[in-house]
């Protein structure tokens, strides 16, 4: 059955650097929203830079983005994309962090260190893939190239 889908991408700055604890909470919160709303996507965080792409039913993603934009933990929210898509490109919710203590995070599932990130999926149009690549570069810096093979938890 076909249902309309869109994706929304944004970048923002954390109001203050997030601790590993807060990152874990953020991860848990994203997963909860995901399970409830059937939203998927990817979240990047590094040194206060936040970027997220969410995909799902526009009736869910639009209000979700409004809620995210109001979140007091970040500011300078810049929406980069909001457009219909044919299929999901991030069917497993995933996120990439620069945690303060990488040891503690290696056990988490659906989580990548920036240098372990998989290549941008080729289900994205080239324009959207370019967007994700530029976002990734803006968050993690120029020297983080996507690894060819991902070391995903499951």
């Amino acid at each position, binding site marked *: 059955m076909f249902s309309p889908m869109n994706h929304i991408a944004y970048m923002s700055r954390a109001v203050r650097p997030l601790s590993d604890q807060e990152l874990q909470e953020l991860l848990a919160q994203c997963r909860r929203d995901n399970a409830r709303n059937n939203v998927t996507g990817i979240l990047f965080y590094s040194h206060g830079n936040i970027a997220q792409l969410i995909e799902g039913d526009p009736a869910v993603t639009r209000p979700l983005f409004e809620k995210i934009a109001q979140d007091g933990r970040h500011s300078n929210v810049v929406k*980069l994309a909001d457009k219909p898509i044919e299929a999901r490109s991030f069917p497993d919710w995933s996120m990439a962090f620069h945690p303060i203590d990488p040891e503690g995070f290696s056990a988490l599932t659906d989580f990548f260190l920036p240098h372990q990130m998989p290549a941008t999926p080729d289900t994205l149009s*080239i324009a959207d893939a370019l967007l994700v690549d530029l976002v990734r*570069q803006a968050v993690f810096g*120029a020297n983080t190239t996507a690894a060819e093979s991902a070391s995903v938890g499951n």
Partner: protein
Amino acid sequence: MRDQELQRILRHMPAGIATLLGPELRYGFVNEAMQALLGGNTPEGQPLTDVSLPADLREVMQKVYDSGSPFVAKAYGLPLLGSNGEEPTPRYFDIALEPLQDDEDQVHGLLLFAVDVTGQEEARQRAHELALETRRLDARLRVLTETAPQITFTVDAAGNYEYVSPQWYYFTGQPPTADLDAIWPLLVHPEDRLRVLYQMEAARKAGIGWSHEYRLRRHDGQYRWLLSRAVPELHAPDQAAYWHGAVTEVHDQRELADALRRGEAELRFLADSIPQLIWTATAEGFIDYYNQHTAEYTGSSADELGPTGWVSLIHPSEQSSAARRWVQCVASGESFDGLFQMRRHDGQYRWHIIRARQLTDARGLRWFGACTDVDDQHRLREVLQHQYDELARTNRDLDTFVYTASHDLKQPLFNLRGLFDELRRTATFDDEEHEVLLRMVDGALGQLDVTLHDLAATVQEQRQLTAPTEAIDLRSVAEEVLLGLRVLVEDAEATVNLDFKAAPTLIYGRANLRSVLHNLLSNALKYACPERPPCITIASGMTEAGKPWLKVQDNGLGMEVNKDANPIFQLFDRQHPHIGGTGVGLYLIQRIVTSRGGHLEVASTVGEGTTFTVYWFG
């Protein structure tokens, strides 16, 4: 009974009560509070000791006793010994000294009455300190408000000015006696007056602050932009009594902002007017502005294109490489530069040069890019290249044709020559004129042979133009060529001088060099003056710039040289029609020399001789 009750009450009263009797002021009745005050030891009948009360108080007591008039010592400080040997703390007492009189109005003692006023005294002292501090703060506030580069003011709920700092008078040049409420509105620029008055009134009615800009007339008559901001002072919730505010001059900032806005609007107009795709991007590489023409060309609005949509306009085969290149450029800061096909709104792909450069200034880092349509130029170049290839091929075909034709014609010519010789040998001609005819046919056949040979040679040379070069000894080549022309030289009794001392060797194609020498020498011999034996000089040398040259000078017929055009170098163009030749020679030299980057010059005087100079390179 009553007396006892009274005594008990007096004994336990919180105020100190004591009677001191006789001129020695001996202890009479001392209640508990007074006992504590006097140090605890007050045996009845004992006089006051030095330690129990300070000397000044005892002196006053003595005087009250002597004079019989009462006295009250207000807030008199007494160090009260703490229990358990603690440090004495100062306590304050109002001490009333009342003379006690007997029935005959004779003073026989003092009534001592002490009320602890320590609390009041301390409060009074605190109040005094506070008053001092308040005065100090007040003075500081006044200095601040009167020296800050701002006009400060206070307005009441009715809109009347309660206070305005002296800066207002400096700014407006008004006398201190000016009626603020009447004059201030008059000094506001007429175009701003109504708006300002309305905004202030509206804010006062709503009990909120305001912040607005308007022009106020300065003492020199110039209107300056000011920013007026005020906040309400609330006396009860939602009930503002006063507004306190400051007026800051923002004229220069405003002028600057106006100029910036104007500049930006003009730049945007400029960008929108250019028939090119112009865009800007953020430091992260997201496009945040496309000019008007982009929408016209692509048929997509800036929103539809989005921050990375430009890549989808590029021909699909080039999209990923363009995207990769852009990501790299954003990372490294290198300029983006490339030739891409971009889709027009009607689906046609047109060639564009895409260029983007980074600009870093006070406002951060941004990218500026332009896509220039070079499709027409690109197509024209393709057409020209195609035509060039076609022409080159035709040229090659022609050469081949000429070579084949001249080669193929040689055999029939050979046959013709054989048949003609046979005819001459066997047939007899009686007429004298027939002999002339025969000679003419013979000459024509000879000329045809030479022409065919030269044509073949031309094509041959053409093919050798790309032959490799080597260092050649000029003298040996010249002697070789002269050997080939030996018959001609001997027939003409010509003298040939060789002078290669200045530049004995030349780096050139050997066959080309031989061909050039052969043609120049045979020309010099051919166009010799019949009245004198030919004298030919061949010399070599170097120009000042170090480029080699070769000169062939004769004393032959000479010719007209047209400076403007060089018709003598055209194929089949002949200077002396009465002399045998094919007209190929000079053309051939010209082609050889120019194809290797050199040129040929000629100087000649009719009847005296000709000099050809070959500048091999340049």
